């Protein structure tokens, strides 16, 4: 069941109706049942994998707590099981596993003799990270193990965040499940506004942008002029952002109706003034997970090994390693490794360039400098979308080559107006968010203006739904 579907809308309404009637304890049981039911609409295999993962991690968490800090066997068992399973599924979906088995069995026939039919279970790469963070937090005594299996299962299976996160932490999410939830007027207002903004991003902005990105953009870049190739890359950057931010906003809104706050994932990423800042604004729940469980531990490890905190090794390697892991988490393809390393390199260079310089306050910098920084980071990020979107390193090369060597005559048409309008709407939303440091800044406006904007947004969503000739249902980050 896709999130952008009438079936999901009915599912949410029914879930909410029953949820409000139940006492807190039963609410969790109901939410868990609804979450498993939601997953079941995708496939049984995903439900089975999730249940196995819940059992192993629940049991392991309790054993870690009972054994204390000294004995780390259970901790490493839990982490290795999760990581190994993720690697297994990643290898399988990337086709490496099948290739290896074919080579091992000496199967010459490239097709037909057998086919591995293991799919990546829905949401696995997201709840797997939640499981690891739970085990780490329990091992580090930052949170107690979940006493109640239902609560822990819900932490792993909670349907609003199942498809693409946000990746929650046990230390904040479990207590929220154990307290009485009050869904008041304010929460409903927040939830509703989030859903409308999310749909506006996904259905209107991302919907428009996706229909203007040609399917052969990376497979046949030579068909396009330099100007068009650059413009298409810009469209891609805004599309991927609005698609994912739209999804996050919708599911956070739904969760608000359930009285459970989900972590934010986006804070106007294209206003980032440095690459480090970008990762504090883009896919925040993943980048903070990587920061807490890869970057910080590795940096601490280097310090313990008496590495100078101002050395190249200390400044460059942790970001590179962290972003490499980020790339691998997305996909085991060489192009994603390149994407990760590109981001890691940008961060490393940034840290090395700032070495020894006094950190100037961002607010004190002149406007022109600030704008320059933002544009520079934005350009760098757009460049990194090329490997992310292309699906192969050869295509990255072809694309970059075409940008510099294309002889196709650029054609500026009225067609460009529509995606430009979509980008302007995106800019308006982000600018309000950025200036007020509030994703729901629209709610600060006078009631009439707020209502008028809401009405226009709903109208735009409605018209986009009706007029859409493209598949709007799935999200780009569902693929991970």
């Amino acid at each position, binding site marked *: 069941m896709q999130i952008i579907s009438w079936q999901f809308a009915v599912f949410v309404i029914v879930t909410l109706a029953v949820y409000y009637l139940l006492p807190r304890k039963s609410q969790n049981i109901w939410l868990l049942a609804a979450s498993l039911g939601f997953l079941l609409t995708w496939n049984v295999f995903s439900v089975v994998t999730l249940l196995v993962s819940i059992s192993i991690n629940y049991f392991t968490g309790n054993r870690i707590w009972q054994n204390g800090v000294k004995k780390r066997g259970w901790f490493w068992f839990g982490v290795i099981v999760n990581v190994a399973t993720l690697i297994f599924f990643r290898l399988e979906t990337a086709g490496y596993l099948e290739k290896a088995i074919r080579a091992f069995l000496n199967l010459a026939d490239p097709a037909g003799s057998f086919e591995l039919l293991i799919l990546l279970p829905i949401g696995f790469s997201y709840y797997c990270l939640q499981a690891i963070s739970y085990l780490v937090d329990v091992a580090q005594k930052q949170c107690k193990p979940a006493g109640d299996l239902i609560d822990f299962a819900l932490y792993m299976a909670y349907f609003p965040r199942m498809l693409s996160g946000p990746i929650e932490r046990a230390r904040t999410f479990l207590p929220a499940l154990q307290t009485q939830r009050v869904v008041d*007027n*304010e929460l409903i*207002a927040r939830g509703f506004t989030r859903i409308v903004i999310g749909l506006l991003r996904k259905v209107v902005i991302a919907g428009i942008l996706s229909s203007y990105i040609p399917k052969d953009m990376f497979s046949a870049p030579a068909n396009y002029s330099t100007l068009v190739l650059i413009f298409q890359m810009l469209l891609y950057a805004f599309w991927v952002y609005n698609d994912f931010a739209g999804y996050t906003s919708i599911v956070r809104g739904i969760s608000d109706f359930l009285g459970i706050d989900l972590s934010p994932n986006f804070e106007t990423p294209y206003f980032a003034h440095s690459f480090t800042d970008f990762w504090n604004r883009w896919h925040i729940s993943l980048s903070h997970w990587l920061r807490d469980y890869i970057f910080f531990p590795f940096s601490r490890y280097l310090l313990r090994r008496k590495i100078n905190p101002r050395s190249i090794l200390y400044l460059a390697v942790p970001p590179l390693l962290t972003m490499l892991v980020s790339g691998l988490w997305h996909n085991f393809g060489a192009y994603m490794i390149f994407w990760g390393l590109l981001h890691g390199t940008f961060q490393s260079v940034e840290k090395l360039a700032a070495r020894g310089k006094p950190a100037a306050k961002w607010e004190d910098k002149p406007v022109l400098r600030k704008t320059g920084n933002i544009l520079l980071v934005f350009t760098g990020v757009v460049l990194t979308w090329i490997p992310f979107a292309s699906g192969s390193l050869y295509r990255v090369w072809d694309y970059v080559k075409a940008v510099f060597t294309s002889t196709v005559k650029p054609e500026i048409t*009225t*067609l460009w*107006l529509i995606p430009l309008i979509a980008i302007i709407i995106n800019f308006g939303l982000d600018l309000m968010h950025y200036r007020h440091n509030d994703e729901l800044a629209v709610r600060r406006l006078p009631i009439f203006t707020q*209502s008028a904007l809401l*009405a226009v947004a709903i*109208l735009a969503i409605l018209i986009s739904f009706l*007029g859409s000739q493209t598949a709007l249902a799935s999200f780009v980050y569902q693929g991970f």
Partner: protein
Amino acid sequence: MKPFGKTFYLALLLLFVFLFAGEGITRFLVYKGIIPKPTIGSNNPGLNIKLVYLDKIKDQTGKINCIFLGSSMVYNGIDPDAFSQEYYNISGRKVTCFNFGIAYLTGETAGKLAPILINRYQPDLFIFGTSARDYSEELGGNRDLIDDGWIKLKLGNWNLSGFAKENSLFYREYLSLLSYLNPETWKYIQEVLEFTTPNGQYKKIAQIATPIEVWTVINEKQLLEKDFRGYQQVLKQGKRNTQMIIVEIPVNKEYLSTYVNHSIDSYNNLFYFRATAMAEEKGIPFISTVSNNYYIPDDEWADMKHLNVKGAANFSVWLADKIWQLDQAGTISWGAQ
């Protein structure tokens, strides 16, 4: 934060105000002739334009006597004026006909369009011009037409998109604006408008001398069951007030020998015998060009499977004679003149 209830209800109110104001202003502008009446807004501009033309003829004459449906082979190959004139010459009956040929139409889409056109215009005669290409993967196109909301609505599947297209000029103007802003779609619309006559025929005078080897040969595996099911749907539309007739649209003799699986036998076995048998089963007349040895000289072809203007006129005259024979045999019952 401000209380939300008021904002929400005001937003809903404003939404209705915007919708009704938009609809009202659009209708006023269309009524005053300041902006043109938008087409139905389906995902096929050719279909939209044909519906506008057909509505106009119906408004002018009060009755459409016959509609020809088919692919570009019909679109190019049937001249409704020549047909009507010949029919008048031999029978003294004036009939108003329209060519509803749509480029790339397949059996599947024809199966959806036939009931819509028959219910909307209630013609005395509905002529489906068909050829093996209507059932092939390779040569068929426009298949997404069947997913269009308006088509679905007209076939009895209510949906908001179809409802809005059917009832809201405001929404249709928005869709027209999107078409206008899309250079490719707009170019196509301009071409359709330029070369389609008011009675629906495509009259671009062009002789395309493409070598025979270039023309697609339909492979046995490319013939699709869903297109034959669509053909079955067309056959089912023969009703008390509308006589259904199937016409085999000719292809160039040279091409016929390679058209299906490189042999005339394949053409007969995979398409012709099956199509005639299906029509016969339903008691629907099937007018064949191949078995009637209808000869088309080289100067009447635009290309290997499309007749040119002259060819279309002559073929339509021949067809009128064949239909007159059916009329004489009592197969056709024309409505009151």
